């Protein structure tokens, strides 16, 4: 066998092994999803009333029940309001901040960036006490702004990081040419930077949608009135002290997964591009 053929064989073997590892990992990550769907589809009490990976029965009753019993439509509307608002705000403010950092070099810009990025390291639970006090003092308990504000603030760091990387990759010549043509900074931002950063926009949007949609603790503490609760809080209904309805809990969770999955599928290509572009330019 020639050296070239050997190299090709080795490459194929390496690729095969890589695929095997990836398949194993994919199965590993898919198991909880399968358990969720199978359990949600089984009639109450089937399979010992616990978690199941093998379907004992097939029914959509749990979905119907949780839809009515938890008032899920109302909760979903609340979640959509909060998620869409915070995502739009994060896109707007983080792209503007990144634009400022990239376009206007000033003394201490790196320190400002560092401070902004420090937010990535802050889990909501670590700041919950002062954050709650602030929301309370602003009179925003049981108010959409009580969630939109914190979600936006907590999403800014990641947004700025992605937009800064994307904006840094835009050739300076284009910006210079636009300036020569008399474009204002706003026009440069809107007509050049944003259209050239669609993958970053998609990435930040998906990450923010994921975060806002799935966030539990702040929503639990801020939205204490039933008509203001977000959809993530619905599963508590089925977690009793001495018993739990796993079938219905998983039906709630399966329903909540659908919108996020749709968002991801729509922006999947841009999301991957956004992540890889961030990785290379980082």
């Amino acid at each position, binding site marked *: 066998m020639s050296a070239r053929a050997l190299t090709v064989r080795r490459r194929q073997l390496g690729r095969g092994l890589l695929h095997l590892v990836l398949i194993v990992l994919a199965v590993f990550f898919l198991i909880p999803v399968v358990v969720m769907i199978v359990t949600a589809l089984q009639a*109450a009490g089937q399979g010992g009333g616990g978690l199941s990976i093998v379907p004992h029965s097939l029914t959509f009753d749990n979905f119907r029940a949780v839809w009515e019993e938890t008032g899920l439509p109302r909760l979903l509307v609340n979640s959509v309001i909060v998620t869409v608002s915070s995502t739009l705000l994060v896109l707007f403010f983080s792209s503007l901040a990144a634009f400022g950092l990239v376009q206007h070099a000033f003394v201490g810009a790196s320190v400002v960036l560092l401070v902004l990025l420090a937010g990535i390291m802050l889990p909501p*639970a670590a700041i919950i*006490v002062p954050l709650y*006090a602030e929301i*309370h003092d602003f009179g925003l308990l049981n108010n959409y702004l009580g969630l939109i504000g914190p979600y936006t603030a907590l999403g800014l760091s990641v947004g700025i990081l992605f937009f800064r990387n994307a904006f840094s990759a835009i050739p300076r010549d284009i910006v210079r040419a636009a300036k020569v043509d008399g474009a204002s900074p706003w026009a440069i931002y809107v007509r050049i930077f944003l259209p050239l950063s669609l993958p970053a926009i998609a990435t930040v949007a998906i990450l923010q949608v994921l975060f806002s949609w799935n966030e539990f603790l702040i929503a*639990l*503490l801020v939205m204490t009135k039933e008509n203001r609760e977000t959809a993530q809080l619905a599963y508590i*209904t089925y977690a009793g*002290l001495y018993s739990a309805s796993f079938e219905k809990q998983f039906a709630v969770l399966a329903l909540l997964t659908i919108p996020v999955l749709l968002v991801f599928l729509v922006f999947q290509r841009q999301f991957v591009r956004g992540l890889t572009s961030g990785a290379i330019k980082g």
Partner: protein
Amino acid sequence: MSDDANADKRVEAGPRGEETRQPEATMTRRSVLKSAAMAGGGLALLGTPGSAAARPFITRAKVTIDYWTWHHISQVPTEKGRDRIKAAFEQANPNITLNVKLFPFPDYLTALKTAVPNGSSGDVLGLQNGALLRQYRPYLQTLNTLAEKGMGKNWQKAYLSKAISLPQRENNWPHKSDEYWWMPAEVAILGAQWYWQDIFQKVGVSVPKDYGELKEISDKLRSAGYIPTAWGAKDQWPNTDYLIVYASQFRPGVVEAAELGERKFTDRAIVAGLTFMAQTVKDNLYNTGPFGTTAYPEAYQSMFAARKAAMINTGAHNISLAGTPGAQENWRAFLFPHIPGAPQSNWLGKLPSGVPTPTGPSPSRLIFDVGYLVSMRKGLDKAKQDAAWRFIQFYVGPKGQRINSFWTQPSLKAVHISGFTNKGFVNMLNWHFAVAEFGERREFLFPETREALQTAIENVIVNNADPRTELAKVDVAAKKARLKAGGKK
């Protein structure tokens, strides 16, 4: 307890009096006098001194109260929309809407930490006896006046005596106070030796009269293929329960006294209790590797409920397991029998030391805790305070406790665990309540003491450490905790 429904009916009479007037009717002198008399009567009724129970409820407008808890047992997941407490309370109090906010327990602690100091928590809060209740004392309403008005001057007498005395002593420590900022909603009674009656019969053993007999029947049970007693020591909490049960034979109340600094953990009674505890492991009373076994689900469900173990040290708090097939017919209980070297005493009086079969004289005592209490947030306006109190009174009163008695142990003397049909099982459960009046305190005032004691127990049993040396370390931890809490020694 006052009759809420009647009180409400009386309230309704006031405003509805106006509605019943006939607008078309001619205004005669007689009707004017009649109206004046009714109005005067109504005012007099409002001003009548005496118990508030006899007074009309002053809240006429619809009031919404928020009840925050992690422990809303009447909300059964499979019965959504049928929260029995909420339904019954709102039916009895049509002017009040009860908004139950249920939290997972770890998040509940965060919710309290954030919302209580800001005055934005629920109006009624569910709390645990001990550290949690003490921590929020400054933010909670003193309920003495409301309780006396609503439930009568000696309202405490309706409750198991320890359901009142225990939280009062613990939560005020190191001071003494007659203030109540909590009401006892349910209790936990443990420390009895539960057994499968039919397994005992099948193997041909009977309830032991002393520890020697317990060892003998354990050997026979093991030979017949059963684990004599299931013990889930890995979870740690059963271990302090066991020690309190054993030490109670040598000196009742000694563990509590040691924690409060009135005695030492190196007291002879505790040393003897811990030494005996280690001996029971050497005597092969339990499942293999108890310190590698969890209480739930292994010891309780997989061993005892699954009939692999013939006995378990538990109590009436474990009624959630009584749905096990054959449990009602066959689960019976006795107190842990007399330990060699422990003094003899007839603390039970005429009460049997087991149901249906007593164990011998001078057995261990049961252990007792007030598992769940409800409190009211300070600073509520008058209407909310009235409504919040109505809910507390309902919840800890006969109506609320009767509803909850399907799942938990009531703190009222007159209410018993419900939902079971087997007479023998019901008798056995009720026996726990009678014996619990002599019970030992279960929960520790300071988590530091409990953790130090759990470590000492594990070191003695697993690592063969010296009991006295290990217990001396507990004394150090307990003293530190007391000083931190404002105690003197």
